[in-house]
């Protein structure tokens, strides 16, 4: 379990997160939705301990960072490092052994080629694959489905179900609502620096409809398409 109390974060005068209070329970999957720039990535970085913040973040295993697999929106790979070496590096960092990586390579990645030569989707798959081998307790997945092909998306969805079975705590940000509604137990809407709504599974479709209507009303109309 991860408990966030009165979390606030500012960059100078710009308040990005304001008094966030959330609980992420063990064995559950949570979605975070919000417009671009709403503060999702900042929230994730605070939980992971990459950013400093006001407030408290506690968990049943501390420090959170040592037990968290963090998939970034745009994973960065060192130049001239192969997929296999990247996995080894991430496992070394957590004192775990990756085991038979070839046997576990369910994404069929070309592990002996340089990661910088991978396509966008392959880079995402590699970063995802590596954190799965770190034996983490918590997972923060920032846009895990972006750029990934259909087969990859199906595999990721299945892995999310398996993580739930293994009692892991998973937090996901995604702009593809269906991926969240299929995998999450609860979705939090981050808007104007705060959590404006928290919705349980039975109300997901209502939230999606509301978000669609709001988007169409506020944005598409302004475009004045002819």
């Amino acid at each position, binding site marked *: 379990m991860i408990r966030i109390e009165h979390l606030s974060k500012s960059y100078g005068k710009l308040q990005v997160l304001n008094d966030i209070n959330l609980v992420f329970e063990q064995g559950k999957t949570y979605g975070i939705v919000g417009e671009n720039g709403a503060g999702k990535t900042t929230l994730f970085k605070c939980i*992971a*301990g*990459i950013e*400093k913040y006001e407030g408290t973040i506690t968990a049943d295993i501390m*420090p959170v*960072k*040592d037990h968290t697999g*963090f998939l*970034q929106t745009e994973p*960065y790979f*060192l*130049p*001239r*490092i*192969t997929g*296999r*070496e*990247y996995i*080894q*590096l*991430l496992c*070394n*960092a*957590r*004192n775990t052994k990756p085991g038979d990586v070839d046997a576990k390579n369910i994404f069929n990645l070309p592990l*002996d*080629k*340089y990661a*910088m*030569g991978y396509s966008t989707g392959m880079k995402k798959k590699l970063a995802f694959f590596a954190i799965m081998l770190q034996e983490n307790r918590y997972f923060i997945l920032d846009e895990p489905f972006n750029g990934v092909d259909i087969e990859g998306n199906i595999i990721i969805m299945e892995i999310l179900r398996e993580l739930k079975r293994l009692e892991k705590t998973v937090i996901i940000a995604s702009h593809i609502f269906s991926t969240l509604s299929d995998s999450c137990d609860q979705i939090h809407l981050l808007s104007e620096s705060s959590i404006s709504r928290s919705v349980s599974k039975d109300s997901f479709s209502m939230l999606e409809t509301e978000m669609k209507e709001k988007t169409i009303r506020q944005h598409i109309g302004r475009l004045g398409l002819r």
Partner: protein
Amino acid sequence: MIKKYFLLQYKLLKRGIADFGLHPLAGITLAVLLFTAISVYLFRVASYASYLYVLSATALLFSLSEKERNDFLSIIFRTRDYYKIRLLENIILAGPFLPLLLWHHCFIEVFVLATIAVLLSFHRNNSSVFYSIPTPFYKEPFEFIVSFRKLLAGFIACYALSAIALLNANMNLAVFSLLLAHLLCVASYNEPEPEFYVWVFKKNPKQFLTEKIRTGLIHSQLLTAPLLILLSGWFSDHILIFLGFQLLGACYLVSMITAKYAAWPGKLNLPQSLLFAGSVALPPLLLVTTPYFIIQSQKKLNSILV
């Protein structure tokens, strides 16, 4: 369009110098003075200076042929403008190397460098994406995996120089080749890694630094020890000199690793660069600067490692 591109590059250069903590004009003047001083010194002390000069210029020219950069340029510019830009860039980069070569009547080297500059303007380094160069560092992949592949030509040059030193019984060149290999190892720690690559480690700052230093020393020894054994065996009367330089190289490496994390997540600023450069020039200073860098780096790492 081309003029605007170079004006933008000049603006970026000025920003880079300002980030380093210098006024752009002062930075450019300092760079020109340093380049001139090092060049004059090199030609005064080394008979092979002209070859090193061409080699250094070629390495710099290669860096401009990087694939992603060239792909981007060729997408945004018309083909003719793209080649004009690449040619001009290479001429600008190779230009400063030519006056001293001409002054020393190294006409063949001038011709070779000019030819390389023109030919490389049509070249893109794209082969590295399709195959990976094997390295002995796969168990602990990080800085040395990257630098070994990036600076492979440099390490080969070190071994080639040492071979020339053996054939000509040139002790100075032998020492230079060993020191150059160590400096290439030090260069592995030149670029700061993004926060994620520090955050991901399940270590406190002290453990993290200790591990970085341990790995760095083992990997640098793997690269330089064959050179040390070869040179010490050949010039057996001077074995202590080679061992001394081996130890000095290790001290430089430790200092560089700690300096890197004292500046992290940014690059070394001007005072830190001067401290490190001063220690390289005057090694006893390492006894003061390295502990200072250790304290500073632990403070910096405290923000992300617990």
